[in-house]
């Protein structure tokens, strides 16, 4: 099955069809990410996790989603109605848009834009506008504090995410995701770029976790002090949008890392002689999702290990440590590329 999709050549109907497929797959995938998170959390804490609805609790989040859909949409009287209702869509649309550019296999990519990485960074920072809108329009002090923290956090860590990806772009020489993967046919970038690539990966994972507003960087929601942060006043499906967006964002951050550092849909080099990929190209989806979920697991591991940072510690970490290191790292990477010290397999 070849799913070669080129927006320019195909008509409107095709676009809508693809959009519907993506929406369908990712809203269900988002639900199962929530389930995965709850199971992983349970295993980290010596618990069992959801185990009542369906076998091993597999349908638990489906039931939760149905419950949320059937719930009443409440809101505050003094909320700014228009912005209040707009905010969840901002958040969910921006995270769904980012999904379009990922190459799942060689053939399966909805939108192969030549500024792929740039597009991803740009889109992922739009989501924070939704959070700010939601917090502001709710007319609730906790929501506002949460939203402002989100602004501070995302603006700061956006820099590190961007710069660590720029470090890798120095190696690839292109922003287009399909070509970035093409470059990695000579070895994954984390191997090609060795030391600076590993540093960039570490910075990327830290900053990426902060971008998704997850623990240990969940200043935005901070259940123990802010209620639920920026979405305190949301209920029902609007709340579910925020919730789903958080998990899709986690998937996106992991998918970017898998694509840029770990070769996307490419199989590990030691498997290439077997030639499975030539006979059966769709296996790439397996590799891509496998790498992505390994990184998603890493982020869950962070969440259930580290204590939350205070706001000032959060900013210290970014501006005093990650950012200077990142800038140094770019210089190092530039030197390595210039002197031709990369490792090519």
């Amino acid at each position, binding site marked *: 099955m070849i799913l070669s999709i080129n927006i320019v050549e195909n008509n409107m109907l095709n676009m809508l069809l693809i959009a519907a497929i993506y929406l369908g797959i990712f809203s269900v995938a988002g639900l199962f990410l929530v389930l995965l998170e709850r199971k992983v959390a349970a295993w*980290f804490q*010596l*618990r*069992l996790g959801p185990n009542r609805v369906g076998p091993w609790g597999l349908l638990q989040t489906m039931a939760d989603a149905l419950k949320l859909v059937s719930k009443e949409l409440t809101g505050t009287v003094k909320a700014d109605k228009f912005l209040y209702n707009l905010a969840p869509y901002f958040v969910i649309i921006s995270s769904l848009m980012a999904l379009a550019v990922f190459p799942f296999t060689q053939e399966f990519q909805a939108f192969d834009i030549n500024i792929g990485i740039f597009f991803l960074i740009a889109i992922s920072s739009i989501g924070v506008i939704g959070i700010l809108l939601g917090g502001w329009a709710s007319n609730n002090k906790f929501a506002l504090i949460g939203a402002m923290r989100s602004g501070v956090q995302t603006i700061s860590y956006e820099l590190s995410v961007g710069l660590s990806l720029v470090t890798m772009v120095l190696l690839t020489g292109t922003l287009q995701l399909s070509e970035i993967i093409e470059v990695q046919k000579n070895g994954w970038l984390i191997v090609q770029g060795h030391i600076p690539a590993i540093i960039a990966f570490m910075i990327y994972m830290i900053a990426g976790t902060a971008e998704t507003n997850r623990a240990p960087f969940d200043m935005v929601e901070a259940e123990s002090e802010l209620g639920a942060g920026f979405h305190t006043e949301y209920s029902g499906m609007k709340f579910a949008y925020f919730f789903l967006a958080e998990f899709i964002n986690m998937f996106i951050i992991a998918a970017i890392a898998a694509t840029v550092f770990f070769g996307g849909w490419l199989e590990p080099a030691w498997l290439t002689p077997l030639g499975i990929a030539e006979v059966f190209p769709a296996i790439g989806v397996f590799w891509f999702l496998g790498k992505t979920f390994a990184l998603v697991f890493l982020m869950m*591991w962070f969440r*259930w*290990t*580290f204590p939350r940072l205070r706001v000032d510690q959060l900013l210290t970490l970014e501006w005093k440590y990650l950012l200077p290191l990142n800038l140094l790292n770019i210089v190092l990477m530039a030197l390595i590329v210039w002197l031709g010290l990369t490792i090519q397999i």
Partner: protein
Amino acid sequence: MSYFGDIYKGIKTLLTGMSVTGKVFLNNKNNSITQQYPDNRETLKMFNRFRGEVVMPHNEKNEHTCTGCQKCEIACPNGSIEIIWDRQIDPESGKKKKMIDQHIYHLGMCTMCGLCIEACPTDAILWAQNYENSVYDRSALTKVLNQPGSKIMPGVED
């Protein structure tokens, strides 16, 4: 150079933490500490000291051992027990004496402290072993412990 020292120390401690949680994650299958919900209602044997709710046992002749002394009512710290009593002629001795009409127990207020059961001189009330006490209407949580038509077991007051 404490700047880079801090970074080194930070990364090291983070990795230590991750190795601890990672080990827990890998070993959790056998020693999960969760107590499962008791679904096996038929075969379940509850613990002796389990406190479900306060009940008053009756024998086959519909007799209980509550004398209506009100000690449990006084002992209860939050007023979960109300004894409604009056003085009636005892059919056997022909004397007037105190008898309970209704022993009212508010399960919804009870903190399961057990002081009433400690206080009862005739062991008329004790702990039940049931654990599914939720109801749809809170008025169902107000219970009359002595069964209708029941009377005190002869000889308890002697």
